[in-house]
């Protein structure tokens, strides 16, 4: 089955591209899909750390493109999820080592073998972003409920449209329901009104994400975390399922907690 190439991008740095790539990839692999994640952030690689595969890197993306190894040799297989592979970025080179057409060629080779190719884009709108965008079938834009992140997301969505890769799909990451309720944070409606694109995920701010990222264990594999549930839902929506959005209105009353105990993991 030919794979779908999904590029995860944001414009602004630090909004959660790498975490989202790792977790959506892991969630897809946990659903018995064959997934390869590519780190396109050459020179500032992170995806290997988030997936906990850093110590197994021998060859990287630039080695494949420059012909120093075969594609197979650069693919690191995740031990927890045998259907999840990683192609790491080179740490000692920069974005100019790869061109958009190199990425298209590489992805075309991978399409035959996998169900999903997930590409983690670097921040910015320069060469690295264009490398990550070139092979994409689906583009996921990550943003936070902050004015600056939303502004950058708008710019990126415009660029995606002008490269005729649209329409982009949006993931709103790190929502703090209590702050939204107080009116101190942009709400989902505010963001969608400006960006006017299809929403594919709402991910709450969750301390567990920081812990799991540091340990290299994708939070999507943690059955208890709300953020993990949100990433699993994104994966299912990519697969074409209709999944209702998480109810993030966690007002924490005793009765609500009791209800969530009775229906664990309910949406």
């Amino acid at each position: 089955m030919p794979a779908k190439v999904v590029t995860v991008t944001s414009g602004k740095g630090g909004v959660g591209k790498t975490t989202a790539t790792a977790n959506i990839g892991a969630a897809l692999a946990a659903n018995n899909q064959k997934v390869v994640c590519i780190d396109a952030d050459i020179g500032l690689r992170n995806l290997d750390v988030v997936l906990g595969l850093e110590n197994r890197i021998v060859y990287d993306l630039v080695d494949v493109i420059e012909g120093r190894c075969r594609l197979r040799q650069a693919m690191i297989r995740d031990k927890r999820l045998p259907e999840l592979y990683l192609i790491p970025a080179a740490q000692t080179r920069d974005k100019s080592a790869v061109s958009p057409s190199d990425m298209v060629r590489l992805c075309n080779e991978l399409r035959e073998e996998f169900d999903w190719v997930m590409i983690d884009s670097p921040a910015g709108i320069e060469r690295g972003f264009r490398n990550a965008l070139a092979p994409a079938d689906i583009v996921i834009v990550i943003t936070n409920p902050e004015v600056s992140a939303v502004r950058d997301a708008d710019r990126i969505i415009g660029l995606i449209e002008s490269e005729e890769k649209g329409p982009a799909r949006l993931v709103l990451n790190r929502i703090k329901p209590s702050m939204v309720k107080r009116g101190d944070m942009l709400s989902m409606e505010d963001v969608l009104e400006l960006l006017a694109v299809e929403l594919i995920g709402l991910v709450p701010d969750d301390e567990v994400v920081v812990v799991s990222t540091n340990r290299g264990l994708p939070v999507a594999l943690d059955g208890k975390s709300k953020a993990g549930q949100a990433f699993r839902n994104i994966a299912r929506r990519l697969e074409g399922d209709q999944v209702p959005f998480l109810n993030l209105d966690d007002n924490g009353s005793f009765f609500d907690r009791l209800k969530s105990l009775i229906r664990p993991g309910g949406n």
Partner: protein
Amino acid sequence: MQQPSDLDKKNMVEKAQIKGIREGLLITVGEGDWEQVHASLLEQLDEQGSFLHGARLAVDVGTHVLKAAELGKLRNDISERELTLWAVLSSSPMTEQTAQTLGLATRIGKPLPEYPAARPDPNLQSGEEAILVHRTLRSGSSLNHAGHIVVIGDVNPGAEIIASGDVVIWGRLRGMVHAGAEGDENAVVCALDLSPTQLRIAGHIAVTPQRRGKLNPEKAHLVNGQVVAETWDPKKSK
């Protein structure tokens, strides 16, 4: 634009002319099918080899009407040769607009003028023509036109519109807008939701005050050198 006078007619497409300008190199491509023109241009660049290495190119595509994908491919192909495409000149407003959305310049020789000087082509009289843009302008996109501009869609923060005439936005105006950019003090700006980051008419600047009350279509114009926004009233309009 000068075309070579005695060209070999057997050639499918004319060779592109390359000449040095202050900002780098200006390449004027010939007529004919764009794919062939594109291929022949790349061939020419390859022939020049390392001589051009690192050069900044402006490409004059003349009357070719190009889509975003075609311009994007041109830019990619050029960047793969270690060259930079920074400007696309065209006689087609559509192509100019597409180039602008890709972040390419569409004018050379004139560095961006100091604020608040006008940027549009001075050959056109204000009000001579209008363009209609049927999409949302997102952050980073810029629309420059000597004449009026009508947008059906939103203008998001970070986008800018500069017109020598009037600006009409059928949607939410949240970006920067400059009407009467050549000094026309009678220019107006209308929008269904007039909340620009900054609004300029001729040489006058205003920012949107905090919105109160309910949303109405508004028109901004100059009254004694002050930018004034008024709720659109069909009875008062001429």
